């Protein structure tokens, strides 16, 4: 048994026949070959699989792909505009906001939602917003700085 889903992923329309049990993260990784979205715990606790579904940060390991039918999905691969990195990507690079990089795609997309909701968050707000995304390498110190830097850069660009 299969079911049909139509989604827009990183700006491109897709229609696929899939197993109704297929999780969104496996649809992205295995069907669309978008392996930048990672699986860290399969239980919505580590956040490595975070993607944007209609602009909201969602953990793709516990959402069925079928539930995303009709939605617009952004993964880490869709964040840069061609060669031009998103300010969050630039900031994570400049502030050394990751080491092994495994949590990074999810972390950046979780931060993306924060900055959509609150363009000028302080350290406490940033830490609160990223609470669902685990990083074992950085102690979060530089991740917080990176998000803060991105907020400043995005505010400057918006002026």
């Amino acid at each position: 048994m299969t079911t049909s889903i139509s989604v827009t992923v990183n700006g491109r329309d897709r229609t696929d026949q899939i197993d109704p049990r297929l999780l969104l993260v496996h649809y992205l990784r295995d069907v669309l070959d978008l392996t930048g979205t990672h699986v860290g715990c399969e239980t919505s606790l580590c956040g490595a699989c975070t993607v944007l579904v209609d602009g909201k940060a969602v953990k793709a390991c516990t959402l069925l792909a079928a539930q995303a039918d009709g939605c617009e999905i952004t993964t880490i691969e869709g964040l840069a505009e061609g060669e031009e990195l998103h300010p969050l990507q630039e900031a994570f690079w400049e502030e050394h906001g990751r080491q092994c990089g495994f949590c990074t795609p999810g972390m950046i997309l979780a931060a993306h939602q924060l900055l959509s909701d609150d363009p000028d968050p302080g350290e406490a707000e940033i830490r609160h917003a990223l609470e669902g995304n685990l990083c074992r390498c950085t102690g979060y110190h530089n991740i917080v700085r990176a998000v803060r830097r991105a907020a400043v850069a995005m505010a400057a660009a918006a002026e």
Partner: protein
Amino acid sequence: MATPTMPKQIGARVRRKEDPRLITGSSTYTDDLKLRGAVHCALLRSPHARARVLSIDTSGAEETDGVVAVVTGRDLEGEVGGLPVAHKIEGLLEPPHLPLAVDEVRYVGDAVAAVVAETAFAARDALERIEVEYEELDPVVDVEAAAEGGPLVHEDLGTNVAFEFPFEAGDVETAFRDAPVVIRQRLMNQRQIPFAVEPRAVAARWDRGHRKLEVWSTTQIPHLLRAQLSLILGMPEHSVRVVAPEVGGGFGSKLNVYAEEALVGHLARALGRPVKWTATRTEGFQATIHGRDQLAEVEVAAEEDGTLRGMKVRLLQDLGAYHQLLTPVIPTLTVLMLPGVYRLRNLRVDLKGVFTNKTPTDAYRGAGRPEATYIIERVVDMVSDETGVDPAEVRRRNFIPDDAFPAETCTGLSYDSGGYGAALDALLEAADYEGLRREQAGKRERGELMGIGLSTYVEICGLGPSAAMPAGGWEACTVEVRRTGNVVVKTGVSPHGQGEETTFAQIVADALGVSMDAVEIAHGDTDYVPEGIGTFGSRAQAVGGAALSLCLEDLREKSRKIAGHLLEADPEDVEFEEGELRIRGAPGRSVGFGDVVGAAYMADDLPEGVEPGLAATRFFEPPNFTFPFGAHLCVVDVDPDTGEPSLRKYVAVDDCGTVINPMIVDGQLHGGIAQAVAQALYEEAVYDESGQLVTGSLMDYPVPKSTYLPSYELHRTTTPTPVNPLGAKGVGEAGTIGGTPCVMNAVIDAVSHLGVRHLDMPARPEKLWRVLAESR
């Protein structure tokens, strides 16, 4: 004529070369690999801590749709050997450790069967159709019970004690006789779960044409794994290629040779199809090594002014159910590092390594040294508490003085260089120690609980001289300068987040005067990188970087010879600076490095006796370990009503010798301190009496979230090591080693005026609440 000076790269805050792929989702971790025709492997694991396996019926699984093969331990006999332990411990008992258990399972998570199927889901479905008949046996879970007898984890051994490691230096009895201060304390260094965010994964492909097994693995040690797989699978080593692709964190948990690496390699060869296995997070908790789990009974003798006289330590290391690669070696590092930064001449240690029915322990960030530092740093605080001498002063009175370096310890180490007093002074000033003590006094008067924790540490890094290592302590490097001037570095230290693609390029840029963009740092593929040992024990720069430096010195030397020939000058008179080779004292007479490279490969006008090409391979054998050190301070407030501790300030002064890239060094410290805070306040792997891991998921095991941790204030002193040409000591574990006792000392300081001398980690609110309730 003045030449513009190229900025030095060593010491510069250079953003990382590897990051563009990591921040765009373009990197390839093991689980991202798509191998044509791959089948998927899943493992059935024991739900019991100890049980006899009476029978395994795989027929149901074999009939499941999509299943390609089902294997048990019996099927592997004669095909797949046991897993290795590397050590030099006299008399170590080494029970067999098979990739799939036969006859008896010894911990929850011990694998008994493997299914290979067309999809990962089919493989997991089929696991549920394997019928295993177990006869449950009483497990031994408590390390003291195991040491005293108890049920035997390996009955054939007749004991659970795998080894004893007694050590004695100085005159311990005299040190304790008539000592004005004697303190006894039991300290538990609780079991930790490493939790790299990337789960372990293995993929393998049998190349029938070349008769070569290719194995991709989430490993810190591709070359050691290559050698071990050739032994386990009975293949020539040249028939095994191991690749560590992008690796998502390790912290020691990927410094191993795991059952799945052998099993997946075997299955790929046997089935003639690529096979892939990726750990579930549950497998990450149950069947990936754990760390720590060491019980210490400590007795210390001291003078009334806080001077240490001697120490007796009884250590019980919980090994878990089997030896993994370095399991028994880890606690021996604890013994070596017990004196810490102090003049301690009289020391007796009685270490026993003990099997229990739990997941094996092995290297976890710091690996034996955090345990030592925790003991000695708790001890000096207890001496302070007992004598009334300020903890900073107790430390100062016992420091190994600056003029003692290289300093011999009573455990036989030679500390390379150090300046412990300067680090502590810098810390106390940066943190305003006196101001904090005044603040604390004021708060105590108001009934508020504030603790100030100190820790002064030294660690053993740059592992290490081969004589002191279980399987070689050297590191290898090849540098190839390509015809058009690009430089390819092939290093044996395969990183998993440490940033060597950047720091090694910085070293090359300075030595050869090329741009960072002209340098590629290759690692992790044993068919491309000739030899190596791996990344662990804070050795990447201190040993791997040193091997690179030797290569670069060879290339500079050869370049000078070629340049001398081209310039018709004595090579001795050629200076090589910033990519230019100039005749000393003859301005204007120079050639560029690119001209030398061209000449080396055109090879039609080389000096006599100089071979064509420009490449070098070197092995660096370190003459000693390196000994980074530092001083940490933190402030913990404890809620008097709930007992909840909150860490509000963390200041560290660390000295890791020469710094190649301060941004990367700081990042290592941030992450290391985070893991220290995690052990002190949050994380504890708990087993119940039946041997079930009750903290077997992220719901139960509190890996710190962003809200659990503060930001850190970092400072540095710089004392280069004479042990290697870079002067770099290593920094990967410093934060964890220095940080754990620092946080615990602060927690205990917050309640010490209520009569509390010690609390075991983690300092959960409930423990503090009980202490507070009792003191009321």
